[in-house]
């Protein structure tokens, strides 16, 4: 008999602009000690499904239209608040995506961990303490007796997620719902957390519902997979069935979007005859001094964000810059753009040293290097129509007649795959992928020689991601546009770049042709990074072993 049976779940959001069918007829069963993966892109209803099980839906605007969710003889959808409170956080626990916001910053970890024990199980103070220390140890938090008095900000992202998992496990739940628990984490940390969840599940006979957009993550974990799209289950089956014999077109499309990134790029960038490099960066150092303050003990400390980076880029080449958060890859990009104060070094664009240029000269040379940002929701001015945004960029190169300007704008739109009917719209009327296209159009409007792309596809769904990457590659072919492609995602890097530099703590630890780097990584950190990538293939993924890297220092 299954532990949880959901039948015909429908959740609609009643908004001013009409009814949004967030979940539209979902059925599934969850067996004891198995993992159910729910995969889908943003807006597919995967999170709403789980929120409705725990009574966490915002009602209104949400409304449960129909369905049953039977758990231990209780219908979770009909249960009152009193009953739900006894189940929630006790027999069904949940962990969330963002460990930075799911802990209260004003309370110590200990206070937050002890709370559920007092509330649900009426533990004595001493017994609760023993239990908390035991669980903290189990989730891999070293020295729990001391760490228990620390505040959330004293933990790293990965450690906070461990705290969240500890909190979920305290009451020995039967079901653990994990809503994108590793999406906000670096790939090496993700590998550790996934392993932890796998181990805990086996040891405690947990039933896990694992929500994710990443097929690689789910491949090794899930026994059974539910593929959701626009509120409907398009396909469900065992992990092997979904990955090796997908039936629905949507599943196939999803798998293709992931797999395409594994296709190596044909090396096209040849030095186009002209001597010298487009961009050369020598011994670049960007240090930050933490602000000094009377009460600030850390003040005056120097952070070496970029520490002695040297790299070169040729015309038409795409150079990848890969690393985890805090590795200095974005700061390198921003330093080349001169968006941040550089400490020392030389940055030459076609022989012109950017760092010694005076301000006015710098402004005239800026259009040569353009940037695409990670967040397409923040990179467009919300008060300007697309027409105005593009016109502004084009007119920087000089005045034009109205007709010429219109032609150029239309050409740009065509280049990035948008049509002219979008011109009078504002950014908020577009989807994330479309906005990223507009941002790309704005960047290439100035006919730059170099494009710095800072995580341009990280916030996009996989199917959109593949489209944008394809677009960037087309533009690279068409205009021989050089790119510095910054990303934490190795599969994206592998798909688009010619050469790749791996950054770790402000330094480049390895720089090689992308295929060479992926086939035979030399540096132990690169090896660790590569071993951490989840593979969208259940058999391979279950065998994959993560080799952590610890620097000798």
């Amino acid at each position, binding site marked *: 008999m299954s532990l949880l049976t959901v039948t015909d779940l429908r959740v609609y959001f009643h908004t001013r602009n009409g009814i949004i069918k967030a979940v539209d007829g979902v059925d599934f069963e969850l067996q004891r000690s198995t993992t159910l993966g729910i995969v889908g892109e943003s807006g597919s209803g995967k999170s709403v499904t789980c929120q409705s099980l725990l009574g966490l839906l915002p009602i209104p605007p949400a409304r449960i239209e129909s369905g049953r969710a039977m758990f231990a003889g209780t219908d979770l959808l009909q249960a009152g608040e009193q009953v739900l409170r006894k189940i929630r956080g006790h027999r069904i626990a949940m962990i969330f995506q963002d460990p930075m916001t799911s802990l209260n910053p004003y309370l110590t970890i200990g206070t937050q961990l002890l709370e559920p024990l007092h509330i649900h199980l009426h533990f004595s103070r001493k017994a609760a303490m023993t239990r908390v220390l035991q669980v903290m140890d189990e989730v891999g938090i070293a020295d729990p007796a001391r760490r228990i008095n620390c505040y959330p900000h004293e933990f790293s992202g990965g450690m906070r997620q461990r705290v969240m998992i500890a909190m979920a496990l305290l009451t020995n739940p039967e079901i653990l719902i994990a809503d994108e628990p590793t999406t906000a984490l670096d790939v090496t940390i993700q590998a550790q957390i996934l392993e932890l969840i796998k181990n805990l599940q086996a040891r405690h006979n947990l039933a896990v519902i694992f929500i994710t957009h990443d097929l690689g993550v789910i491949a090794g974990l899930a026994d059974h997979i539910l593929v959701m799209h626009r509120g409907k289950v398009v396909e469900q089956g065992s992990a092997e069935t979904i990955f090796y014999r997908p039936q629905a077109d949507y599943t196939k499309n999803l798998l293709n979007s992931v797999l395409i990134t594994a296709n190596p790029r044909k090396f096209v960038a040849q030095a186009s005859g002209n001597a010298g490099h487009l961009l050369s960066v020598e011994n670049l150092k960007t240090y930050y001094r933490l602000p000094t303050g009377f009460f600030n003990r850390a003040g005056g400390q120097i952070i070496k964000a970029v520490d002695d980076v040297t790299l070169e880029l040729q015309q038409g080449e795409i150079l990848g810059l890969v690393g985890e958060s805090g590795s200095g890859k974005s700061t390198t990009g921003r330093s080349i753009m001169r968006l941040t104060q550089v400490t020392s070094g030389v940055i030459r664009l076609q022989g012109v040293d950017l760092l010694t240029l005076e301000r006015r000269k710098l402004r005239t040379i800026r259009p040569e290097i353009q940037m695409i940002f990670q967040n397409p929701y923040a990179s467009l001015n919300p*008060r300007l129509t697309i027409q105005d945004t593009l016109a502004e960029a084009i007119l920087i190169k000089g005045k034009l007649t109205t007709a010429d300007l219109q032609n150029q704008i239309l050409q740009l739109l065509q280049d990035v795959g948008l049509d002219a009917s979008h011109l009078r719209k504002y950014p908020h009327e577009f989807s994330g992928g479309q906005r990223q296209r507009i941002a790309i159009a704005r960047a290439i409007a100035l006919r730059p020689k170099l494009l710095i792309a800072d995580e341009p596809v990280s916030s996009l769904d996989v199917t959109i991601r593949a489209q944008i990457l394809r677009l960037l590659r087309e533009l690279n072919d068409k205009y021989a546009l050089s790119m510095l492609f910054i990303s934490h995602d190795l599969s994206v890097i592998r798909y688009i770049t010619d050469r790749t530099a791996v950054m770790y703590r402000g330094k480049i630890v390895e720089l090689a042709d992308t295929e060479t780097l992926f086939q035979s990584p030399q540096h132990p950190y690169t090896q660790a990074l590569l071993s951490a990538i989840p593979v969208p293939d259940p058999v391979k993924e279950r065998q994959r072993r993560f080799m952590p890297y610890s620097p000798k220092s």
Partner: protein
Amino acid sequence: MQQTGENPTIESAVSQATPESGTSLWQDAWLRLASNKLAMTGLCILVIIGLIAVLTPWIAPYSYSDQNLELGAIPPSTSHWLGTDTFGRDLLTRIMYGSRISLMVGLLATAVALTIGVFWGTVSGYLGGRADAVMMRSVDILYALPFTIFIILLMVVFGRNLFLLFLAIGAIEWLTMARIVRGEVLSIRQQEYIEAAIAMGLSKPRIIFRHVLPNILGVVIVYTTLTIPNVILLESFLSFLGLGVQPPQSSWGLLISSGVETMEEYPWLLFFPAAILSATLFALNFLGDGLRDALDPRAYRD
């Protein structure tokens, strides 16, 4: 220029749209405002009150200063629609004359506060660093000055003068505006579209006027609609201290404060000036809300 091959109807439709920079925001905003009934009602009320204030010398039924003690304070009647005050002066006439002063204070002092405050706050927030520190500390110092003493000093040095009063009130109100604007600019500055603008090589003034200012309009407008009533009340307080408008001239604030004194015997002396002030403030708030929404493309979605 490469031939785009777009079909001609789309192209002609697009070229009708003015490519001229900056126009679309205001045109769109006006269309959105016009479709907001509450805001348009507010605008109409303000226009009517404004027109009456301007035309008062020609349309006022009585003189604002002529006293007629025999009339005494009489309640509203057909000859004196809103009644008369204790000196026998027509209340309607006095409210009409009072609106000239009150609206002028409201507009001019707020305009002064708005100009200085937005300029100071934007420059301070956008430049950041040392300039920001110096500019904001000077705001802090001015905040610390007791403003009545400040205004008394101004009056003593420059003599009592209505325009000086407007300036003095504006010179106090801009401090809060500067702080609010600076905070807002600081957060806008972090946005990636500002970095994109810098990367394109746009000049600082252009970035500020085109990319920063339009995005802080919402806050500025809301705060402005809060400042205007504030300023009108401040004027009555100063007049009460003998620093502002002096009898026989009047302002709404003065009428209300003298109405309060005789509230129990002659309630209409309080009711009508207070009602007209409230109506103005309501109208301002509706218009302010409407403007804020109209200027934000995200607020409307059809």
